[in-house]
């Protein structure tokens, strides 16, 4: 029972990491239909930001908290630069954005190698985040613990989703983003500067990748190729969740997380990955447009 519970929480936390990465994609891919393969490198930029800040501010906790907004800004600005230089020329060619941004991701990885060196770098996590919370000890002596860094990431995801939902629903920027997504031409005619809205959407989406990068320093390696391993899974979350829908991504991320961790527990990680893929293909047979669909002109 303890194991089932701790396994369930592991699944939830895998889902949280997936969601944190997919959240930015749900804006740039989901709302704007841009397949940004360099999203993983924005995550990397966020992680390296944490590393650089720690060279300046030695206190691990303080530097981690400061890293969150700065990584958001760094990755966000990289996103804006990418949007302005390349992507805005390619809005009518979504498949080509995939290829172009893959080229960009190659270049960014090499830049990271040239600046920070090929080996991974390390950051110190604040002591508070390397511990865990003990929930209870079961009869056979196995403790049920929840890792603090996982809780921190879960909290971060909840906050990010909350902020994003609020921003999309209640601010004028959010209204403009939704207007542009639903009908670009009409929005333009109504006086919304669609180019600027696109750039802002991209800023927020890429910035969220930066935040994911900060969170990932608590879990995994910080190196030039750290973004490439996770990015496909995150794309799948958005695809299955349904374009243009936050709630779809949320449900799918947690479902995939729990599915993967349960299958992995019963078999192996390799088998789990293959089964998750088969499940996704099967799901798309049933609902080819993803879990939730938004009726927009762009999806015709």
């Amino acid at each position, binding site marked *: 029972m*303890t*194991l089932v519970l*701790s*396994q369930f929480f*592991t699944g939830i*936390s*895998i889902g949280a*990491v997936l969601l944190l990465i997919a959240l930015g994609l749900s804006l740039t891919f989901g709302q704007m239909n841009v397949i940004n393969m360099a999203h993983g490198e924005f995550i990397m930029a966020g992680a390296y930001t944490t590393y650089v800040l720690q060279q300046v501010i030695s206190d691990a906790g303080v530097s981690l908290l400061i890293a969150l907004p700065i990584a958001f800004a760094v990755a966000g600005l990289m996103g804006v630069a990418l949007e302005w230089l390349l992507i805005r020329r390619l809005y009518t060619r979504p498949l080509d954005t995939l290829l172009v941004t893959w080229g960009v991701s190659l270049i960014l990885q090499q830049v990271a190698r040239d600046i920070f060196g*090929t*080996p*991974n*770098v*390390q*950051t*110190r*996590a604040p002591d508070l985040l*390397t*511990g*865990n919370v*003990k929930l209870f000890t079961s009869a056979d*002596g*196995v*403790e049920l*613990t929840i*890792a*603090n*860094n*996982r809780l921190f990431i879960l909290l971060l995801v909840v906050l990010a989703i909350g902020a994003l939902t609020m921003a999309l629903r209640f601010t004028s920027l959010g209204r403009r983003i939704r207007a542009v997504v639903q009908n670009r031409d009409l929005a333009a005619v109504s006086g919304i500067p669609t180019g600027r809205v696109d750039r802002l959407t991209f800023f927020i989406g890429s910035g969220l990748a930066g935040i994911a990068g900060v969170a990932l320093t*608590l*879990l*995994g*390696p*910080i*190196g030039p*190729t*750290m973004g490439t*391993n*996770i990015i496909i899974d995150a794309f799948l979350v958005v695809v299955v969740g349904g374009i243009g829908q936050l709630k779809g991504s949320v449900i799918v991320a947690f479902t995939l997380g729990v599915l993967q*961790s349960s299958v*992995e*527990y019963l078999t*192996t*990680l*390799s088998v789990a*990955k293959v089964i998750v893929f088969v499940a996704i293909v099967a799901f798309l047979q049933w609902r080819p447009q993803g879990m939730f669909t938004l009726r927009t002109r762009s999806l015709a």
Partner: protein
Amino acid sequence: MSRFRGRRLMACSAILVAAVALTACGSKTGEGATGAGVTADTSGDTVKVGLLNSLSGTMAISEVTVRDSIKLAVEEINAAGGVLGKKIEPISEDGASDWPTFAEKATKLIKEDRVVAVFGCWTSASRKAVKPVFESNKALLFYPVQYEGLEQSPYIFYTGATTNQQIVPGLDYLKAQGKKTVYLVGSDYVFPRTANKIIKAYAAANGMTVLGEDYAPLGSTEFGTITNKVKASKADAVFNTLNGDSNVAFFKEYKSAGLTAATMPVVSVSIAEEEVKSIGTQYLADQLTAWNYYQTTPGAANDKFVKAYKAKFGADKPTSDPMEAAYVSVYLWKAMVEKAKSFDVEKVKAASDGITFDAPEGLVTIDGATQHISKTARIGKIGADGLITEVWNSGQPVKPDPYLKGYPWAAGLS
């Protein structure tokens, strides 16, 4: 239209048939290969050696440092007058962490550059990919990394540890510490799977129990479930054969789960000083490693090696076991050539048995029969300063036994 199509397809098929008919006159399998027509070029004042390492891709992390230490050895030898009066000219090729590329570059070094020997390769997969190239061209490879054993190519010299020089001593140490149960965690490739097979055989014969065995795909960074399983098993120790990035994620998760070196120590066989630096001592303090060399290994030869390496590549760069084995391999090759008084591959091989070298890790001796070297096994503890200090050693060099023939419990393995 259809008339044309038929005609063109017929013409194309004719080309195909003609091409096969024209050229199908090479030797059949089993007739004895005629491919070994390439000989190394030793006519000039210099001889070329090949350096075959990944300078790009995921393995570059480890392999660049190996390349650097090979270069260091080459420079030292050249400064001391070279080999048989000839200076060594190193030619570096990038294997790009991609096994077929390794095979391609090995062919290039042998056939185009006509090198006298090649030093390099890291992963077992890259070694397996180049092995047929060296065998069919009758050229020499020096392989400097600990590996899974069960191999003995006549054209490869293995200067890293085989299993009885690293894994078996690691298990002996755990047994001596009174650890009765172990959990096995590894990356999903040849080395961990073979190592774990050996560990299970050892455990069965030595009264230890293997409580579980888990593999993660190379590069995998999600260790929540594996850590849960490890924790629930309440094993006495963990034997870790993970590679590269996965180690970072594993140890971060391990610490978060409240597992420590005091309650459940981890013995790692792929974490050297360089990796400690990139994972962070926060997560690794007091965990164990099994190798044959540490930067802290005492002795004049090692002082000289560490000093020379840091002078050339930077004071913050640590030295590690594979780097040392690569450095040693160049000197061993030099000694073999000088004993044979020739660069000829067969003569060099014939001269190899019994050659010794006062290496940074201590005295090593080539065993001509297996083309491995005898090495002292050392268990180390990772310190808060990122260096590894020895807590136990085998006392004397362990003779290489790649097929574990001298261990009765390993009878069914190979």
